[in-house]
């Protein structure tokens, strides 16, 4: 058996049906073996998009995504996608071609040290040095990527290892034990604190969805009756229309969510990591609160905020043991009052399309059942603020890395992982250009992905910050010379329409949900629209700037 065959056989043994990639010189033996492997290969048009597609596939399926690239530039083009998976804890197995081992270290053609380059952004990595090690490495990589706190694993595959024959038996893969059960004494202390709390708040993070702990989490929320706020990646841990849900916290969070956290006496952090976008100035975050911190990763405990009770380990197991019903009727009513007093408004003046209103109506029309993938910028925050989201795996956003260009390839991965569910990429006119070549992938595979392109002819979020914090000195944010995106889409063979008037919202929503095949809806919006509210940098979440319609 050749190394490439052994690698693919190991992937098949793990149930891999589809991989995302782009061929090239050093990876050719693997691409040759793919032809007879029974594994479906999706040819993306850029390696970065292959990594993002594998990421989207993983987030929706709950299983590691696989991406493949050749050595040198192919490998370096994966780096942004690998970093994205690392920062958002997404299980990913990235396979890179490498020059043959006798050439490694000689600055050969298309040789880069991708193992060294990616050391800080992988959960683990390998250089294959012996063909017979390949099955063990693949199985080990798969387990590492998907277990505990998930993350990316790199397998660097020299060309002679892929093409060579295995000689002799190799060490077999030995799975490592899962996380230890939660500590009983710590659980008892946490339960007692919850039972006695007067103003508790649940701070829900991305770990709930990643850990597939949704059922246990929702049971805990329902039983305890404690108000919930969430991070960007925690959205959908409870449906965003749940009465106990106060909204996203942090820089672009709701006033109800941020005020509740600031006023709380107990913060129950579940799969959250006290990220700076969520906490604002850390020293002033939830100043009067004790902290119970649940996380599958022990290294997150005490990293940024000391926990009064630490519960490292499996979230579902801990949550099931924590159910209490504190007497917090007054606090709950106070939170509800804040929520209704600061409810979103959508009565924007004028005839133009108010993006938050369009997004709200789109997600409600889909009943929260579509998979929404975002790029990065103002539209990303509007989706988080205004869309109905019922589960975390239906809201794919580059949270930690904030990588423009994520949305379209992630939608491709999501669509392939769940072909019966509509995947909608909400993008901006800045972000779409980062991976617009993937329109060709939609066309080639006939994927019915929808794209809602919110076009404000500028880099909106940067422009907003320059307006607010740089004395309106606008530097390199003008994109008024954008191409005609509808024409661009049609040139790829993708249907397209352009809308710019509020009266066209219903038609746009209907097309996004019911058009057969891929579609790009190019939506012109007000270039001056900003994302509100906003916690200025360096401030606590008690300081929130408000604009109109808030």
């Amino acid at each position: 058996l050749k190394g490439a065959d052994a690698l693919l056989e190991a992937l098949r043994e793990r149930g891999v049906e589809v991989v995302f990639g782009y061929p090239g010189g050093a990876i050719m033996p693997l691409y040759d073996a793919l032809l007879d492997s029974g594994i479906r290969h999706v040819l993306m048009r850029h390696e970065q998009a292959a990594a993002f597609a594998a990421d989207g596939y993983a987030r929706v399926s709950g299983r590691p995504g696989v991406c493949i690239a050749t050595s040198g530039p192919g490998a370096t083009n994966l780096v942004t996608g690998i970093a994205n998976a690392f920062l958002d804890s997404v299980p990913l197995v990235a396979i890179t071609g490498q020059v043959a081992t006798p050439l490694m270290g000689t600055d050969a053609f298309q040789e880069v040290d991708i193992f060294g380059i990616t050391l800080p952004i992988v959960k683990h990595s390998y250089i294959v040095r012996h063909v017979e090690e390949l099955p063990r490495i693949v199985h080990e990589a798969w387990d590492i990527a998907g277990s505990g706190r998930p993350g990316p694993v790199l397998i660097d595959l020299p060309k002679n290892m892929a093409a060579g024959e295995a000689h002799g038996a190799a060490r077999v893969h030995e799975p490592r034990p899962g996380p230890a059960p939660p500590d009983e004494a710590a659980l008892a202390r946490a339960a007692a604190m919850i039972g006695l709390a007067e103003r508790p708040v649940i701070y829900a993070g991305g770990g709930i969805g990643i850990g597939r702990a949704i059922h246990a989490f929702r049971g805990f929320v329902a039983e305890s009756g404690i108000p919930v706020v969430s991070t960007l990646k925690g959205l959908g841990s409870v449906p965003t229309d749940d009465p106990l849900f106060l909204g996203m916290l942090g820089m672009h969070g709701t006033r109800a969510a941020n005020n509740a956290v600031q006023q709380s006496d107990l913060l129950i952090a579940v799969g959250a990591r006290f990220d700076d976008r969520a906490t604002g100035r850390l020293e002033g975050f939830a100043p009067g609160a004790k902290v119970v911190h649940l996380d599958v990763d022990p290294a997150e405990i005490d990293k940024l905020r000391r926990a009064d009770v630490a519960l490292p380990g499996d979230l579902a197991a801990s949550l099931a043991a924590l159910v209490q019903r504190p007497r917090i009727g007054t606090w709950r009513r106070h939170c509800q009052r804040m929520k209704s007093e600061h409810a979103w408004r959508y009565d924007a003046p004028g005839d133009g399309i108010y993006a938050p209103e369009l997004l709200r109506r789109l997600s409600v029309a889909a009943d929260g059942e579509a998979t929404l993938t975002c790029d990065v910028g103002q539209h990303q925050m509007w989706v988080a603020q205004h869309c109905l989201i019922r589960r975390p795996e239906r809201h794919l956003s580059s949270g930690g890395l904030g990588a423009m260009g994520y949305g379209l390839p992630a939608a491709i991965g999501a669509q392939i992982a769940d072909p019966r569910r509509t995947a909608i990429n909400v993008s901006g006119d800045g972000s779409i250009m980062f991976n617009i070549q993937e329109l060709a992938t939609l066309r080639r595979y006939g994927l019915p992905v929808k794209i809602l392109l919110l076009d404000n002819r500028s880099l909106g979020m940067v422009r907003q910050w320059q307006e607010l914090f740089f004395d309106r000195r606008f530097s390199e944010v003008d994109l008024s010379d954008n191409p005609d995106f509808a024409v661009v889409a049609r040139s790829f063979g993708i249907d397209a329409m352009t809308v710019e008037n509020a009266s066209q919202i219903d038609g746009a929503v209907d097309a996004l949900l019911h058009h057969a095949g891929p579609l790009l809806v190019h939506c012109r919006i007000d270039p001056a629209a900003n994302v509100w509210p906003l916690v200025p940098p360096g401030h606590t979440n008690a300081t929130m700037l408000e604009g109109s319609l808030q």
Partner: protein
Amino acid sequence: MNRTIEVSLSRAEGAIVRTLGLIERRGFVVESVATRGEPQAESLILSVEVASRGRPYDVLVRQIQRLFDVRHAFLIEPQSAGKRLAC
């Protein structure tokens, strides 16, 4: 005050540089490094003297512990060389 972290590592490609790189990237200063281990052994011991810029050592040790090639990592108690502290 500097502290010493003792790390037991599998002899795998990149294990040492991965560990030392993590320590520096997490905001600590590597003051000195020593390794010991038999040439044919499957593991080696890495002793790293680190200085903190105000970040907790126990969190760093847990970050080291989650590296796949790390078998054990312990913070050595000051003035009591060899005594291990659980993290």
